[in-house]
């Protein structure tokens, strides 16, 4: 799978996320409180709501519609009403850009 530039690292505040759309799919790119970057599917597995409008609390992303929670490092569904895990994708930072390895 190719590495795609999602955004500049400086575009995401710590403990926040941005939405990145690519090849007809939506992704969420996170900046953790300790400075690491992560990437998951961009839509909640419960009802296709964009997680980019949600709240990052430490390593958890909370969906803005029903407050379902995922660990964005692993994609693990942590709190109802989400029952299904999010897909996660490799991330690296090069020359100040956040690159994600996602299906072409």
């Amino acid at each position: 799978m190719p590495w795609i530039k999602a955004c500049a690292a400086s575009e995401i505040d710590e403990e926040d996320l941005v939405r990145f759309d690519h090849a007809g799919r939506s992704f969420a790119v996170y900046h953790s409180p300790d400075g690491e970057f992560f990437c998951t599917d961009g839509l909640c597995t419960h009802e296709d709501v964009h997680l980019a409008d949600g709240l990052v609390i430490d390593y958890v992303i909370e969906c803005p519609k029903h407050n379902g929670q995922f660990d964005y490092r692993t994609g693990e569904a942590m709190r109802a009403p989400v029952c299904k895990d999010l897909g996660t994708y490799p991330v690296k930072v090069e020359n100040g850009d956040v690159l994600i390895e996602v299906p072409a």
Partner: protein
Amino acid sequence: MPQCSRDYALLGRDARLAEEIGLVSARWYHTDVPRKEMKALMQRHDGPAIRDTAILFAAMIASAAGGIAFWPGWASVPFWAVYGVLYASAMDSRWHECGHGTAFRTRWMNDALYQLACFCMMRNPVLWRWSHTRHHTDTIIVGHDPEIIAMRPAVVARLVLNLFGIFEFAGNARAMLSLAAGRMSEEDRSFVPESERPAAYRIARIWLAIYAGVAAIALATGSVLPFMLVGLPVFYGSWHMVLTGYMQHLGLAENVLDHRLNSRTVLINPVSRFIYWNMNYHVEHHMFPMVPYHRLKDLHERIRHDLPPAHPSMLSAYREILPALARQFSDPDWFVKRALPPTAKPYRPEFHGDLEPGQPTPGIGGYAAPPPGAALPAE
């Protein structure tokens, strides 16, 4: 009287029709709030809820102690009046806020208070979590929202009996017995995933054992006092929950995708706000359910330019609600369409904001049509 053939059943005709015309799991109208501001409003803190919970528990212990001390004399009545409202009304709002997970920042605190509040309200924590999830997905969509309180026309006996907790108790007690026996109704199964059902059964059995224990103590002591502390408050303390809860959606639009049309914000006194945990800011809560109760007043100030004016009091709200409910007996399609201020974005057809009082939901057949040439009264 025009015929009303609304079908509020979760698996009924209108549920299918609502799905066909795109009212289900739909995109809803939101007031624009910049991400940085919304992030600040959504931030979680333990402090406000710890403070409020400490006050609540202290008040419950004190009022229960007074009730026991003066039992069975009339002097105990004021203490039970306070205890009942805290047990069966304040715990309703704690159930709600902790169900959203927004009361505390610390997860176990949310979960612990949620479980306790569910027990007080006799609401199965699994069943009601999923029911409320659906209420937020499909708010007042006929056939999909399991929390519609007043049908059109309203069942008056149900609305009145609810003031004494009777209708809700009957439903919750029936659900507890049924779940304890390992059975869940077909309607409930429509919104509770299979993986969650065993937890619902387990909790119902634990609760049944607790109530059996309370009954055993009552029998052993020959007194109803144990039930005054556990169980009966649902009957004598629900009135505040009901009076505030009825203000949320009654008399407003069904089958729209704009919370400004189907939810109501009412300014109320500080004591009621403590009991109700600020859910009087109900348009704001539905539009942005991530914002904790203790920031809803700030959210209200931030977006009020885009909302119908808040009612200044409960009295004002009921002056709108009661005539609307009365009118729905003769015209079930009637609802109150509140005017927006000039600063607001207008109601938009893509969110069904063009639905007018007295007109049936386009695409959903079978509703009573107004008489030909009938003039539609202004709000």
